[in-house]
């Protein structure tokens, strides 16, 4: 959405203008006070106003000139950029598909940009070739070199390029960036690391790197949502990283929660113990995340059953919602629990219970019909009836409601 060049200069300009104007207007105000108290001559006041006028006029001219010049120049620059990108995309495509020879010298920026775009999009043999090309041209080290720039903005751009390039040689530098005091840098470094690690073949190297990532995440103090993103971006490397992370003692609640939510989103098997443990955690967010993940993974390990049952009676509403949502995992044993949940004081719990009953096919439907008639709670009766009305007909395969 935004252009990323020339804004630095504009910022310097804006800051200069602001400082100048602050000084000048300060002087003006002071002069006005002096004038009002009669301590200065009228000519001084006029002179001050004149000076302020002139400086403001100069500022205005400079800013306007910059804006107009920028407009014109960016048009041209982007036109050229588009042409060069087109040229390089065509050239890379021919190199990949038609066996043309690759350039043997230094890659200009557009060539790199085009190559990174293709990296995003291609897999298979061509994908592998691109990775090789990136290695041949030392793209990873070239980019990570720029990470030493003192300017935060520059580093953010480089981190983004590294996220696209996904070059393993950049991993050590990225891990360093994950310790940066600036939260935005850590955020982009984490994303870049996740995307890069996802391309590593399974093996001891990947495991070692995953361990480093897990350790760094613990120290990085990233928000829950960002850690989740990281797990999602790890793709195949996610299970291992999650495993390492969850095995740490003293794992922060934020990370544990993010891990559990990622397990659910990715539908990963093999975390039975952790999901079961979540049910008994002191933090309601973790209990809820664990229960939700159970439903999303779709399998109820024996040791988690007690936690799921307990969830129905939890004091916190959103935990009960997740318990109801995942309740269907208990099979027919869930029916009495869901029956009571239909009468919960929270509308959201009632709705989740209704939907969970639908997932239990015939027994569930029968229960809903019975609830619609016989449930002692009026709202439960209404919810049961509503759920049945909204439900897709049994024969329909995923049609619109």
């Amino acid at each position, binding site marked *: 959405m935004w252009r*990323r060049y020339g*804004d630095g200069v504009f910022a310097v300009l804006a800051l200069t203008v602001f400082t100048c104007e602050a000084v000048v207007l300060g002087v*003006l105000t002071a002069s006005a006070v002096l004038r009002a108290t009669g301590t200065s001559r009228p000519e001084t006041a006029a002179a001050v106003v004149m000076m302020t006028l002139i400086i403001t006029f100069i500022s205005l001219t400079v800013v306007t000139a910059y*804006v107009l010049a920028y407009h014109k120049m960016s048009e041209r620059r982007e036109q050229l950029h588009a042409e060069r990108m087109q040229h390089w995309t065509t050239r890379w495509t021919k190199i990949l598909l038609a066996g043309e020879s690759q350039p043997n010298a230094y890659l200009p920026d557009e060539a790199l940009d085009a190559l990174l775009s293709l990296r995003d999009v291609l897999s298979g043999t061509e994908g592998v070739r691109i990775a090789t090309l990136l290695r041949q041209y030392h793209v990873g080290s070239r980019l990570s070199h720029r990470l030493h720039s003192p300017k935060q903005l520059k580093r953010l751009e480089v981190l983004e390029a590294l996220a696209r390039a996904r070059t393993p040689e950049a991993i050590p530098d990225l891990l360093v960036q994950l310790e940066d005091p600036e939260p935005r840098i850590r955020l982009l470094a984490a*994303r870049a690391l996740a995307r890069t690690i996802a391309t590593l073949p399974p093996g001891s190297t990947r495991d070692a790197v995953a361990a480093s990532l897990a350790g760094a995440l613990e120290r990085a103090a990233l928000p829950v949502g960002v850690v989740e993103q990281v797990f999602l971006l790890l793709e195949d490397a996610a299970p291992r990283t999650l495993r390492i992370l969850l095995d740490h003692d003293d794992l922060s609640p934020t990370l544990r929660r993010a891990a559990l939510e990622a397990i659910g989103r990715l539908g990963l098997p093999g975390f039975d113990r952790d999901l079961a443990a979540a049910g008994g955690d002191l933090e309601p967010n973790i209990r809820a995340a664990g229960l939700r993940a159970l439903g999303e993974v779709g399998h109820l390990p024996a040791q988690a059953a007690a936690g799921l049952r307990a969830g129905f009676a939890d004091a916190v509403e959103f935990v009960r919602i997740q318990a109801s949502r995942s309740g269907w995992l208990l099979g027919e044993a869930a029916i009495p629990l869901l029956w009571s949940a239909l009468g919960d004081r929270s509308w959201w719990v009632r709705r989740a219970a209704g939907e969970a009953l639908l997932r239990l096919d015939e027994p569930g439907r029968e229960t809903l019909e019975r609830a619609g008639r016989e449930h002692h709670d009026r709202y439960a009766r209404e919810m049961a009836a509503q759920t049945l009305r909204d439900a897709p007909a049994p024969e329909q395969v995923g049609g619109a409601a």
Partner: protein
Amino acid sequence: MRILDAVLVGFQFFLVAYFAVLNVLYAFFGYLGLRSVMLYAREMSDAALKDLLERDFYKPVSVLVPAYNEEASIVASVRASLGLQHPAFEVIVVADGCTDATVDRLTEAFALTEVQLVYRRTLESAPIRRILRSLREPNLLVVDKDNGGKADALNAALNLASYPLVCAVDADSLLDGDALLRATRLFAEDDDVVALGGTVRPLNGSVMDGGSVAELRAPRRWIERFQVLEYTRAFFTGRAGWSRMGALLIISGAFGVFRRAAVMDVGGYRTDTVGEDMELVVRLHKQARLQGRKARVVMTPDPICRTEVPSDLRSLRRQRNRWQRGLWETLLMHNDMLFNRRFGRLGMIGVPYFWFFEGLAPIFEVLGYIAFGLSAATGALNPTLAIMFLLLAVLYGVLLSQLAVGIETLLLARYARMRDRLVLLAAAFLEFLGYRQLLSLERLRAMFQVRRKRGTWGEMKRTGVGVGSHLS
């Protein structure tokens, strides 16, 4: 006479100080706004956004559309909303006691059928006549209710919303295809975010192509051009700056995204004020502070919402009158926040700023003009000085406009024609030839009407935005 002279001169010097401080603050916010845009632009690229979408990283959202007598444009508008790119969202249109064919047009266009819906009536609202679901669009819900005003309609919609986030828009807001995605990902990333606003830009003058903007062009009428500048300044050098300081108090009614739970917690929108959008945000801040929770109200500088702005003076004046009244109603309702340490930066900086520099500004502006005129006439102030000072005000105003326009130039979707940019430059000057003064007067008028006209809206003459129309 001496005393009058002294008072006039003294007042003018007070005005000089006021003007100086105000403009330095504007420039400061301008700089902050620019910084925030620069960081935001590098934090997440379009490609990264798409990446997250492909991995299911989003939050479902309910789009709430309050509508009153919008028969001309409602179908196009709803169709556009349904075409938004987001994996899980619903659109809830609330026909707020429409006396025209709004509901009929919707029924016909979307094959609506009445349903009995069980939902939780947490918030009070005017009685609902019918709830209608679309047979063709599974995620469209239309509520036909008795008239109760925009806030009331939104509350009714909130009751029916089933997703954790809600996006409150105007019936004529035109959202970008990926607006919801851009907005909701900030909620998904950070639990502390409770409300978000996006940049709103005037639609007038743009060439449309089937319901979306094909080419962004400056409008033909000067009154619309002035508004383009106002919106540019307000969002890029105003709200962006405030957002960065963590003291954003206004989220436009044309586009705002909220966590439903947080809004329900504070009791929804207040129906007795015309500034319900600002009032809600202030209340969200307040509630969070009082409960010792962190609650972030942020703005995304992405221009993801476009709206039609008034093209005639009468509608414009009514709108500005309403905004000023809304501002005052909100400030007065929450006057306990003023200089209250308990509310941190908001209480000590944000709210006082709004009181002194937004709320009281019209008084000072109008009195300033009068004072200058008087003193120049009575000779108490050197007329040359007065003229120079006025010139200074104009130049400074243009400077601020150009700072904002400079930020807009960074957008990929900017006014592309150099011609338009020069038009905006001219408009920055011409604004001072009566436009600003007129609106200051109107805002001043509004302040006297706060008590009398509590909670009353006006109507805007709509020219019918939508599919295949060329606004100019």
